[in-house]
């Protein structure tokens, strides 16, 4: 249980931080697609009897690079959709070939708190440190690009590798998180907290920290609830993620109204 909480904590920090930039850049579709392609990797690994984490990581990074390469000119949503359906097709095939592993597959789709083993703590900690350092380095250029798009770097020299590095970060966050919260609901951890944080403060770096904090709170509460009730973690993450977002919006709307009333009065 303690290890599980540690893994969940690390996962939440990375998902909250990477998710923040995903939401700012408007590329939440990628955050939805990559975990699902990773699911195909897990199914493939199960078929071969390999470590599911390895399968997830390989497929997530390969899909990220594929999306980056396909969208180097033109729309990334089309490229993302292409990679997504290709990988889902593969995942379906792997599943059909290895029907006996369905319970493991189920936990990969919806997450399983007790499925986290002690052996995952080391690699997860390493990936967390790596992603957070990478985000600290790339934070400013990513933020600038989220505002100005192509014009942020009119010479266009850094744009390609910035996009590539960002997609790989999403893939890493995916690899860490899918075993805990599941492929289908990973999305809610990467989108709910950052989307709520946007409404709670006007300051970018404060919003980033807030997003990580909200993701942490969501995950801790979900793991605790799942442990007590034996319902899947993914269910709680999904519900709480949406709840956090809804609360954030309501709070922002109230604040705006109050400010409006103040100005009028």
């Amino acid at each position, binding site marked *: 249980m303690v290890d599980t909480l540690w893994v969940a904590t690390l996962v939440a920090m990375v998902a909250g931080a990477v998710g923040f930039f995903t939401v700012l850049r408007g590329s939440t579709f990628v955050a939805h697609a990559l975990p699902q392609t990773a699911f195909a990797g897990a199914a493939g690994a199960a078929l071969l009897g390999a470590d599911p984490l390895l399968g997830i990581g390989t497929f997530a990074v390969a899909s990220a690079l594929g999306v980056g390469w396909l969208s180097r000119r033109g729309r990334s949503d089309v490229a993302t959709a292409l990679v997504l359906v290709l990988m889902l097709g593969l995942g379906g095939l792997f599943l059909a070939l290895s029907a006996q592993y369905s319970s493991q597959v189920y936990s990969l789709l919806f997450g399983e708190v007790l499925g986290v083993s002690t052996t995952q703590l080391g690699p997860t900690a390493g990936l967390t440190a790596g992603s957070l350092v990478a985000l600290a380095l790339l934070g400013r250029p990513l*933020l600038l690009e989220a*505002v100005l798009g192509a014009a942020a770097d*009119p010479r266009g020299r*850094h744009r390609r590798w910035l996009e590539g590095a960002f997609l790989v970060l999403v893939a890493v966050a995916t690899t860490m998180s899918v075993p805990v919260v599941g492929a289908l609901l990973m999305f809610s951890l990467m989108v709910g907290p950052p989307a709520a944080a946007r409404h709670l403060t*006007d300051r970018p*770096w404060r919003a980033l920290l807030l997003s990580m904090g909200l993701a942490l709170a969501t995950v801790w509460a979900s793991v605790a609830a799942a442990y007590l009730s034996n319902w899947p973690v993914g269910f709680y993450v999904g519900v709480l993620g949406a709840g956090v977002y809804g609360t954030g919006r309501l709070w922002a709307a109230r604040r705006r109204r109050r400010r409006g009333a103040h100005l009028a009065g």
Partner: protein
Amino acid sequence: MPPVPARGAQVLSVEGVHVWLSGREVLHDVGFEVRAGEFTGLIGPNGAGKTTLLRVILGLEPPAQGRVIVGGGPGATSEGAGPGRTAERVGYVPQKVVVDPDLPLRARDLVSLGLDGHRLGIPLRNRGRRQKVDAMLEAVDAGRLADARIGTLSGGELQRVLIAHALVSDPALLLLDEPLANLDLRSEHEVVALLARLTGERGVAVLLSAHDMNPLLPVMDRIVYLAAGRAASGGTDEVVREEVLSELYGHQVDVLHVRDRILVVAGPHGPREADQAAGLPEPPGRTRSRGV
């Protein structure tokens, strides 16, 4: 703060630039100079090649022939884009910026990103930086907008903040691509007056593209008129004349002075089809309220 070039010093020189895109010559033998402290208007109808020319100056589009020299150092040449320092010497305000209203970013954050947004690492709090950002926002008359979310700014307000973002790193040259396109008359007037003031105060050279020269007439030191990929440059009186523009367009055009406005319209012998292709407005009567 890097030394501000002396007024009149050459900041940008474009020499004999030819650009081909998809097998079509988009710019033909374009040459002109931009000097410190001067306001240069890059005027031309839609499709004339204004954006392409700005991309060449930024080093995004290598010219097939000719060269661009920015701030005295080499910029883009036919051998390829110039060295990376070009970006630091050129501020750029893009043609169209759409801001997500939910973006957690204040005007002061955007200006601050103009100082060091390209750098890696975590920004450190620093009083000098903050003062610089505040002073820049004051300089563009946006001091009171410092703490506003950029998604809530009006078009004219956003334009000011983008100008502050582009200018805060003290570039010698400021490029603006159609900054007046979405502004109402009052904001248009304010932004033009602001830019004219900044050229005087900061010695920055402004190169601004627009399809209508009229809002710029009071402040323009020099005009670069582009039509169908060819350019004529000089003082407004030298360039905006029937002989010069007819030559550029390749057919007869009339230059009409209506009070203090100038309208460029297709002359009686201008081939109608070509007018449309060159983006010339229709003759008076059916023309919109503005000239080219």
